[in-house]
């Protein structure tokens, strides 16, 4: 979370609402504060997983196969006797990494394309937005599934798939804003002073779109974590023995019928709580930064 809350400081400052006003409004959202705190703890736990995890996530305890939670294994063990708590801790690294990098890549690509399209207009705009239309024609996860089907399963391909899936969303958002911003007086003033195209786009248009980009960014992380976990769940993610939350759920199926409830409950709850925290944070950011945006 540290990586996405620090740009807020930079983003909120040049806006019409000063940083202090932002903090005052944001602090009113108690749920969001809780969510932020949770995400900070989760990030720390993910970073410190090798030191915090009581067991090696791949080590099997042959004396405790699929055993329910007890004092030695807090969340129980899976069918191979691996400690579920340790695997969830290591899984947090993967889920946060996939969520942040895929939305980050998608946002960078989408914001740049959106700025170019909105600023230049004309043929460039038509070309970029028709491209976005084609990507939008793929409902929801289908594009990500198609990309993974081509690239093959694996963590990096998963990130690429989810990133591409986010590009058109950001492009459309930023283009609409760039379109209306480029006719404002301050942009005209900068242009009349001889500012170059790249200065106009990056120094004058980009900062003004950042508020909604940050809001969207936060909301997309939840979607991306869900999508990535879904892809792993259907077997299009990293190798089955990698401690990824979606993978853990997929392998819980056989045990579930045997009544080993803990194998599916804990990894799923981890996804749920993490995505919920990002969504609560996104909602609060939307209310404080960009009340007009609807999500």
């Amino acid at each position, binding site marked *: 979370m540290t990586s996405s809350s620090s740009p807020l400081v930079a983003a909120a400052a040049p806006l019409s609402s000063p940083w202090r006003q932002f903090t005052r409004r944001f602090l009113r959202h108690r749920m969001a504060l809780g969510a932020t705190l949770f995400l900070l703890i989760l990030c720390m736990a993910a970073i410190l997983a090798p030191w915090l995890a009581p067991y090696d996530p791949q080590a099997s305890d042959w004396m405790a196969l699929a055993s329910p939670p007890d004092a030695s294994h807090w969340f129980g063990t899976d069918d191979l006797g691996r400690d579920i708590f340790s695997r969830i801790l290591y899984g947090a690294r993967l889920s946060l990494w996939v969520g942040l990098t895929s939305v980050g890549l998608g946002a960078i690509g989408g914001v740049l394309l959106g700025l170019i399209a909105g600023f230049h207009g004309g043929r460039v705009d038509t070309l970029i937005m028709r491209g976005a239309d*084609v990507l939008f024609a*793929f409902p929801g996860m289908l594009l990500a*599934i198609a990309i993974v089907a081509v690239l093959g399963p694996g963590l990096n391909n998963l990130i690429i798939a989810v990133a591409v899936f986010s590009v058109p969303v950001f492009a459309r958002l930023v283009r609409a804003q760039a379109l209306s911003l480029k006719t404002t007086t301050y942009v005209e003033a900068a242009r009349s002073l001889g500012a170059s195209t790249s200065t106009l786009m990056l120094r004058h248009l980009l900062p003004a779109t950042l508020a909604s980009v940050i809001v969207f960014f936060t909301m997309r992380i939840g979607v991306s974590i869900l999508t990535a976990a879904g892809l792993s769940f259907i077997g299009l993610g990293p190798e089955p023995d990698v401690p990824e939350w979606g993978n853990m759920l997929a392998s819980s199926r056989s045990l579930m019928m045997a009544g080993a409830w803990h194998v599916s409950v804990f990894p799923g709850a981890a996804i749920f709580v993490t995505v919920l925290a990002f969504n609560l944070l996104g909602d609060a950011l939307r209310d404080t930064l960009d009340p007009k945006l609807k999500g």
Partner: protein
Amino acid sequence: MLIHGLKRLLGMIPVLFTVSILVFAFIKLMPGDPARIYAGADASLEAVEAARHTLGLDRPLPMQYFDWLASLAQGDLGVTYRTRQPVSEVIGASFMPSLWLALASFCWSALAGIALGVFAARRRGRWQDYGAMGLAVSGISLPPFWLGLLLIQFVAVPFGVFATSGFERPLDLVLPAITLGSAVAAVMARFTRSAYLEAANEDYVRTARAKGLTQRMVVWKHTMRNALIPIVTMLGLQFGFLLSGSIVIETVFSWPGLGWLLIESIKSQDQPVVQSLVLLFVTMFLVINLAVDLLYGVINPTVRHT
């Protein structure tokens, strides 16, 4: 209106055309040699080459693309590599289970979502509002495949009323439909609440209240009727997303639908099936979105002919 609709329908053609090129490229880039998959794992080299020739895979790529378009236009989707059945037959058999699942999920989630949204909006700022919206944000954050697993584990297995997989009786629809619809219900609840509150802020609602209309008239005739315009649009879009959401859910319940078929075909590299299914999903999605746009013009006369 009719001309506008026709124009929009024709406007879909370039998008579909580009999508078809993209899908074709996707398929050609998929790992695995299709001729080898068609001929079987232990076929001789000659048999593989013969299969390559029968399937037309030795022709130049642009030719293969136009071959595909030409046979598509004749309604011929080719044969599956696994069972050598016509692809159209395999897809046809999976279509109805998916449609039933989508319809069942859509019906309950639309009703529940709108009801919850109106309920929350009318009690704005009270605990009922917070409760309903907390439920909605949880619904959005819930991994649907996990909800499906939980329902199997804590409802289907112990009570034995519902099947854990497959689709044989209408009753088997219940758990998958709950799973698939939950996110849509949550999205609709949030959207309905804000659409209702926006409509309730309008001058005409204040006027209606001021002239002494009953609460019921104000709520249903003046507020809800106007809030419904964006709500119906959103509903249509959500139906499109139900189609793709079903891909993962069908895997959870081993539902014999299009999504399950897609994943199975990707895993067994059955390229003709994947190719046709992806194009089918995209076409359905585009048609639904177009229908929503046109419907929007019908229920909201102010945007007509723009």
